[in-house]
C-alpha cells in the first residue's frame, strides 16, 4: 500500500525533528588561554572546568563569596536495601539549625525549602554523619572547600507535605547515609540564575559573559564583558568590585542611552539569582585571566618553543659536559617544563582564588559617601562648578558639554601596550572606542541621582578614560567634596544652559527643534 508507506515515511521524518541531540551551550575560553602551549593550556582549562564547571553543570565553588543558595535537609528514611541508596526520603526546612545557627543569624528566616524546584545536578554536602565533610566520597573534596561531586538526580515532593519527599542521587552511596544525617543542597540560585541568564542576558552578554553573544555585534556600545571583573557603574571605589546592590540597580534601572534595558519587573528571587550568577561568571572569567597571566609569560606558544630550544641546547651541553646523565630530547625538555607548570598551577590557583575571594568580599569594599551634603543648587554654586568644569572636564566633554572636547580627535595611548591606537578618540579597557558623554542630552548612564553623579566624578568610571577626581579640587577633603557638588550642580544645569545666541537662531526662527539643541530626550 503505497499511501501507507508514504505516510509512515513522513511521520518518521516528523518524529526525527524533536529527537535530535540538542547542542549544549559551552563556555568559551579566553583567547590568551588558547595561546598557551597545548598541555599547559589544557591544564588550565581542566582546572577551570573543575572549579567552575560548564554552563550545564555549574559548580558552586564555596570558596568564592557568592550566595549560591542553600537548602538544608535531614534524612528521615533510608531503604533497607543498601544498594538502593540512590534514593532516600528526606525532610527540608527546620533541621540542622543547631550547627549552622551562627551563620544563619543574619537572615533570621526559616531555612528555605525547594518546593517544586528542579534540584537535578545540584551538589549535596553532608553536614553530619559518616559523610560529613565529604571525605569518604571519591573526588568529593578538594582543599576542604570544593564541593562534593555527589549530585542530586531528582527530587519529588510529597503531595501532602511540601517539605518532605524523595531525593535521588546520581551516584551510589555505599554505605547509605543514616537516618538523621543532615545535609545541604547547594547551588539552586546558580542554576536558577543560569536559566534566567539564558533567557534574558545570554544573547547579548554571551554564555561566558564575554559580551560577545550573537546580538552583540549589532549593538553600540557593545555589551559588557564581565571577565576582567570591571564594572563601570558602582558605588564603591574604582579599584573595588561592585556591591550586589550596584548590580541590582543596573539591572533594575537599565543603562539609559544604551541597549541595556530595564528589568524592573523581575521578581526579587529572580533578581538575586541573576546577580549571583553574573558575579559567578565574572569570577570565573577573572580567575581564568589571572591564571593565564601568571603562566603566559613562560608558556605562551612561541615563547615556550623558544624556551624549549634554548633549554635543549643547554641540556645537550650539560650532557656533553657530563653534568647530566640522560641525553635530553625535545620531548623530555618539554615534559620537564610542563611538569613544573603543572606543579605550580595549584599554588597559583590557590593564590589567585584568594585574591579574587578577597576582592569580592563585601567587607573589603568601600562605598563612596560624600563627606558633606549636596550644596544647594544655586547660581553661585553652578558658576563655581562651571569653572571647575571648563578646567577639568572640557578637554573631553567639550566646553559646551557636547562630548566633543579636543581629546576626541587626539590619539590615545593604550595603557597596556604603550602604543597609540590606530584611530583617534578614546578607548576603554576592553579596547573599544568610547565617546565622552554628551552632557547636553540629560542622559546619565550610571543613574541620575546626585549621588550617582558625585560618584562618577569622585571615583571616575572603571575601565574608561574617565579618571577619578577625588582630591583634585581641593586638598581639604570636605572642601573637595563641596567643590565636587558644585560641579555636579553645574552638570545638571548643562542641558538647560543656553547654547549661545547663534546656535539655535535660525532653528527657533522657524519654530522647530534642531538636532543639536537640548534634546527633549
Amino acid at each position, binding site marked *: 500500500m503505497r499511501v501507507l508507506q508514504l505516510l509512515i515515511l513522513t511521520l518518521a521524518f516528523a518524529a526525527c525533528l524533536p529527537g535530535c541531540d540538542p547542542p549544549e551551550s559551552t563556555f568559551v575560553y579566553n583567547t590568551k588561554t588558547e595561546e598557551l602551549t597545548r598541555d599547559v593550556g589544557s591544564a588550565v582549562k581542566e582546572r577551570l572546568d573543575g572549579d567552575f564547571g560548564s554552563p550545564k553543570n555549574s559548580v558552586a565553588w564555596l570558596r568564592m563569596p557568592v550566595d549560591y543558595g542553600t537548602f538544608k535537609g535531614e534524612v528521615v528514611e533510608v531503604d533497607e536495601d543498601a544498594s538502593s541508596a540512590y534514593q532516600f526520603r528526606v525532610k527540608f526546612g527546620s533541621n540542622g539549625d543547631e550547627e549552622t545557627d551562627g551563620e544563619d543569624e543574619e537572615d533570621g528566616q526559616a531555612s528555605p525549602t525547594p518546593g517544586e524546584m528542579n534540584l537535578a545536578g545540584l551538589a549535596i554536602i553532608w553536614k553530619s554523619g559518616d559523610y560529613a565533610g565529604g571525605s569518604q566520597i571519591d573526588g568529593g573534596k578538594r582543599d576542604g572547600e570544593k564541593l562534593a561531586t555527589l549530585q542530586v538526580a531528582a527530587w519529588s515532593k510529597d503531595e501532602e507535605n511540601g517539605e518532605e519527599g524523595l531525593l535521588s542521587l546520581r551516584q551510589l552511596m555505599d554505605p547509605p547515609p543514616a537516618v538523621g544525617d543532615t545535609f545541604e543542597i547547594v547551588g539552586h540560585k546558580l542554576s536558577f540564575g543560569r536559566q534566567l541568564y539564558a533567557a534574558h542576558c545570554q544573547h547579548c552578554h554571551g554564555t561566558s559573559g564575554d559580551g560577545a553573544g550573537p546580538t552583540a555585534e549589532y549593538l553600540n556600545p557593545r555589551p559588557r564583558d564581565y571577565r576582567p571583573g570591571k564594572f563601570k557603574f558602582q558605588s564603591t571605589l574604582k579599584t573595588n568590585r561592585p556591591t550586589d546592590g550596584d548590580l541590582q540597580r543596573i539591572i533594575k534601572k537599565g543603562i539609559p542611552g544604551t541597549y541595556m534595558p530595564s528589568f524592573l519587573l523581575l521578581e526579587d528571587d529572580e533578581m538575586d539569582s541573576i546577580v549571583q550568577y553574573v558575579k559567578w561568571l565574572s569570577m570565573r572569567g577573572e580567575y581564568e585571566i589571572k591564571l593565564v597571566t601568571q603562566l603566559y609569560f613562560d608558556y605562551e606558544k612561541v615563547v615556550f618553543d623558544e624556551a624549549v630550544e634554548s633549554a635543549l641546547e643547554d641540556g645537550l651541553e650539560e650532557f656533553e659536559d657530563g653534568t647530566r646523565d640522560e641525553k635530553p630530547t625535545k620531548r623530555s625538555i618539554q615534559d620537564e617544563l610542563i611538569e613544573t607548570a603543572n606543579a605550580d598551577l595549584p599554588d597559583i590557583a590557590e593564590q589567585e582564588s584568594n585574591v579574587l575571594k578577597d576582592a569580592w568580599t563585601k567587607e573589603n569594599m568601600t562605598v563612596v559617601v560624600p563627606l558633606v551634603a549636596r550644596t544647594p543648587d544655586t547660581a553661585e554654586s553652578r*558658576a563655581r562648578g*562651571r569653572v571647575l568644569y571648563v578646567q577639568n572636564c572640557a578637554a573631553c566633554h567639550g566646553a559646551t558639554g557636547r562630548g566633543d572636547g579636543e581629546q576626541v580627535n587626539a590619539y590615545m595611548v593604550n595603557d597596556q601596550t604603550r602604543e597609540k591606537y590606530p584611530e583617534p578618540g578614546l578607548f576603554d579597557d576592553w579596547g573599544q572606542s568610547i565617546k565622552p558623554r554628551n552632557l547636553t542630552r540629560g542622559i546619565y548612564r550610571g543613574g541620575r541621582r546626585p549621588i550617582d553623579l558625585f560618584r562618577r566624578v569622585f571615583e571616575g568610571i572603571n575601565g574608561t578614560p574617565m579618571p577619578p577626581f577625588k582630591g583634585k579640587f581641593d586638598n581639604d577633603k570636605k572642601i573637595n567634596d563641596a567643590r565636587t557638588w558644585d560641579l555636579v550642580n553645574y552638570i545638571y544645569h548643562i542641558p538647560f544652559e543656553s547654547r549661545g545666541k*547663534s*546656535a*539655535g537662531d535660525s*532653528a527657533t526662527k522657524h*519654530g522647530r527643534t*534642531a538636532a543639536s539643541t537640548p534634546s527633549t530626550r
Partner: protein
Amino acid sequence: MSHESPAPALKMGLPIPNSKLGMWLFLGTEIMFFTAFIGAYLVLRIGSPGWPTKVEDTHIVVEAGAINTFVLILSSYFVVVAHEAMGAKNFQKAWKFLAFTFGLSCLFLGIKSYEYYGKISHDILPSHIAENDEQAINKVTREMEDVVNAEMARLGMEGKALEDKRTALQAAIGEQKGGKLSQLQALAAFDSEFVELSRHARDNVALSIPSAEFESQRKALTPGDKLQPLTLHGVEEYLKKLRADKQFAGLFSEVHDPHPVPYGNLFASTYFLMTGFHALHVIIGMILFGMVLMQGSKLDAGWSDWIENSGLYWHFVDLVWIFLFPLLYIV
C-alpha cells in the same frame, strides 16, 4: 442573461492592437508610480512647518524649468508630426522629426544637468544641507578638515593625529624643495587655521580669540565669566578673510559657504527624487527613439506601431513634467 447565442462575433475586444493596449496599461501603472511621488511630495510639504522657497536657498532656476517645459512640449509635437509622416509613408520626414525630438530631449537633459550642477556646486544635496547655524558652522569645519586630509593624502603624508600631521608637515617643509615647499607651507598654515576654527566651533566661542590665548583665558575663568559665542556671521567673515589670503589660493574651492537652509534636506530629497525619476524616463524615451533613428534609411512601415507607442510614452513623460514644473518650481 443570455445563456446561449447561436453564432459568435469574429473579433472580441477593443479595436486597437495589443501593443497599443499594453502601452496604455503600462502608462496607467506609470501614472500611479508618479502619483505616489507627487502625493508623497504634497504630504511632506504640507506636513512640514516650512519650506525653502527663496532662490538663494534652493538655487532653482525658474527660467530653466520654463524653457524645459517648452522644449518637451515642442518635442512632443514633433513626435506627432513624425507619426503622421509614418502614416503617410514619408519615412524621411518621420526620421527627421524624430531626430528633432531626440535633439530636444538632449537639450532637456542638458538644461537639467545645468540645474543639477547649480545645486551640486552649492551642495544642495539631501543630508548635506545644514539646517541651522550650528550645523552650518560644523559643516565648514568638517569640510576644512576634509580639505586638509585630502591635501595630505595628495602630498603623500599619512600622518595620524592632527598634531602629528603638523609636526610631519613642519619636518617635510624643511626637506622639500622648490614649488612644493610653498604648497606645504600653505597647507600648514591652512591646517592651523582649520584647527583654530574647529576648536572654536567645538567650544562655541568667538573666533576673535586665538586658540592659544583662549586656553589661558579658560584657565583664568572666574565664576560668572562667559566667553562670547561664535556666530555664523563670524564664520562667514573668517572664511572671506581666508579666501582673500593669497597663500591659500585654491584650497578653499571645496569649502562651501556656510548657508543654513531650514528644511533643505527634505526639499532636496523630494526635488532630486522627482526630477531624477523623470530624467530616467526621458532617457528611456531617448533609447526608444534612438532605436528608430538607428534604422536610418531602412525605416519602414513596420516601425509605425513602435513610433506610435513610444510617442504615447513620450507624451506621458511630457505630461509628468507639466505636473512637476509648477509643483517644484513655482509653488
